[in-house]
């Protein structure tokens, strides 16, 4: 006998968004769609261990949820619901291939620019990722009740303002895709370096979800360079995940990671995406440049083989698109390898990033390499104070404590 529990978990992961998306389109209401999808899963938990897993679990769930919705609407025939019922009854069986479009529609609905960024992230995780409200609240460090209200408010706006359940028109698409990718990148980053000291340093559930959703956007917009770039960036970053935290739970810097532990398959896929983008000859956007930087890092069998001049050149390219102090800070890290810590420190000092832990961590490292232990210690202290991630705090603390005593 197969493990029905494992099948249910897999089906939930793979089919949840699809079921919700199909129902949302048919019913025109996210709340009802979500509720019916949850009921259908609950029915599956009861029925499948007895009846066996149906040959097409996704279709089974959609049909079950749809029937329940019809039953419910028949029970409570109210003014506007008659209209919805008519819509549902007129619905014909799904043509093949439309299913994935339904999921993309849901992603675009959740990431609509008329919603606040935090609401977009929460809704995407809830409706597309199937995460529970407490899980989302934990991931983003807010009270469960506050996260629940945020999601409810966003759904109300979708309903009242009539945010469409659709992929936007071509003319609106570039701006909307940018928003979608930004949400997915935020979800990925939260998973890759959780900001909550109470959380595991790396949340692979969030990184996996972000990658899955980005694959979806990429598959449906194959010509979008930034969608490809973001996917490559995530894959090349994810490839290093297991090497990034030591057995004792300490962050391992890029230069000290066991490169043998990097995931070769993800790296190969990420490199292929970067090469394909380069071959188009089109000017790369932010994610594509970041992916290229990560491709250079993952290309080096040893940290000493890293092509730092290429990395600096890529950061120069990035700085032209995004002249932010964070880009300049990251560029300086590469400059330190190429031209030495003194040159880098001159570029870092005075950047308006006093509240950002990585600024102080970078200064601390450069000062340490210059033998300026006292200043380095002060910078480590400030970085430790500001860092939220446990693995990072552990790493910074060890580094500080290794400094020569005065």
């Amino acid at each position: 006998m197969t493990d029905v529990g494992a099948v249910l978990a897999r089906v939930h992961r793979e089919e949840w968004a699809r079921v919700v998306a199909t129902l949302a389109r048919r019913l025109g209401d996210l709340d009802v769609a979500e509720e019916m999808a949850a009921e259908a899963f609950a029915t599956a938990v009861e029925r499948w261990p007895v009846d066996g897993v149906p040959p097409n679990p996704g279709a089974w769930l959609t049909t079950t949820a749809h029937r329940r919705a019809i039953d419910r609407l028949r029970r409570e025939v109210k003014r506007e619901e008659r209209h919805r019922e008519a819509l549902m009854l007129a619905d014909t069986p799904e043509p093949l291939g439309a299913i994935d479009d339904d999921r993309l529609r849901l992603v675009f609905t959740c990431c609509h620019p008329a919603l606040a960024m935090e609401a977009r992230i929460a809704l995407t995780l809830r409706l597309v990722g199937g995460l529970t409200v407490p899980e989302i609240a934990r991931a983003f460090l807010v009270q469960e009740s506050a996260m629940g209200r945020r999601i409810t408010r966003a759904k109300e706006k979708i309903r009242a303002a009539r945010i469409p359940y659709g992929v936007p028109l071509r003319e609106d698409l570039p701006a909307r895709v940018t928003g979608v990718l930004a949400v997915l990148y935020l979800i990925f980053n939260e998973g890759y370096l959780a900001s909550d000291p109470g959380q595991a340093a790396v949340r692979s559930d969030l990184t996996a979800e972000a990658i899955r959703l980005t694959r979806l956007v990429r598959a449906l917009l194959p010509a979008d360079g930034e969608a490809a770039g973001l996917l490559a960036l995530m894959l090349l970053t994810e490839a290093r995940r297991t090497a990034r935290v030591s057995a004792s739970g300490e962050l391992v810097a890029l230069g000290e990671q066991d490169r043998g532990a990097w995931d070769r398959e993800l790296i190969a896929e990420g490199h292929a995406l970067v090469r394909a983008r380069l071959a188009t000859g089109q000017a790369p956007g932010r994610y594509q440049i970041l992916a290229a930087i990560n491709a250079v890092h993952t290309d080096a069998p040893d940290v000493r083989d890293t092509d730092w001049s290429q990395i600096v050149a890529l950061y120069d390219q990035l700085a032209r698109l995004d002249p932010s102090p964070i880009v300049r800070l990251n560029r300086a890290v590469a400059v330190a390898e190429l031209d030495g810590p003194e040159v880098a420190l001159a570029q870092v000092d005075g950047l308006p990033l006093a509240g950002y832990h990585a600024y102080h961590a970078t200064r601390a490292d450069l000062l340490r390499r210059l033998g300026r232990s006292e200043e380095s210690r002060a910078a480590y202290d400030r970085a430790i104070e500001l860092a939220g991630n446990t693995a990072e705090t552990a790493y910074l603390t060890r580094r500080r404590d290794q400094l020569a005593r005065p």
Partner: protein
Amino acid sequence: MAQYLMSVLNDTSALATAEEMAAIDVFNEQLQADGHWVFAGGLTSPDTATVVDGRDGEPVFTDGPYVESKEHVVGFWIVEAPHLDVALRLAALGSKHCNRRVELRPFAG
């Protein structure tokens, strides 16, 4: 179809210029031609507003707007659109034509 209120926000004390007025006329004609038009109007300055409270016995009249703010509503459109994305495009065009920020808000129901 749903109806949306597009409020024109003024953050300067300057009145609409002749070019802005002409651009608004062009936009209005377009709204009518495309079947989005319901109603539109311009408002006098907030100094001319009176707040009336008739909830409790004798009505109380207070000179001035209900809230003092740097930005205020100087005009509005009521448009009809099938969903928010269409309304957002109209609001973007309206903002461009009248050269002011626009708040878009759906009617209830």
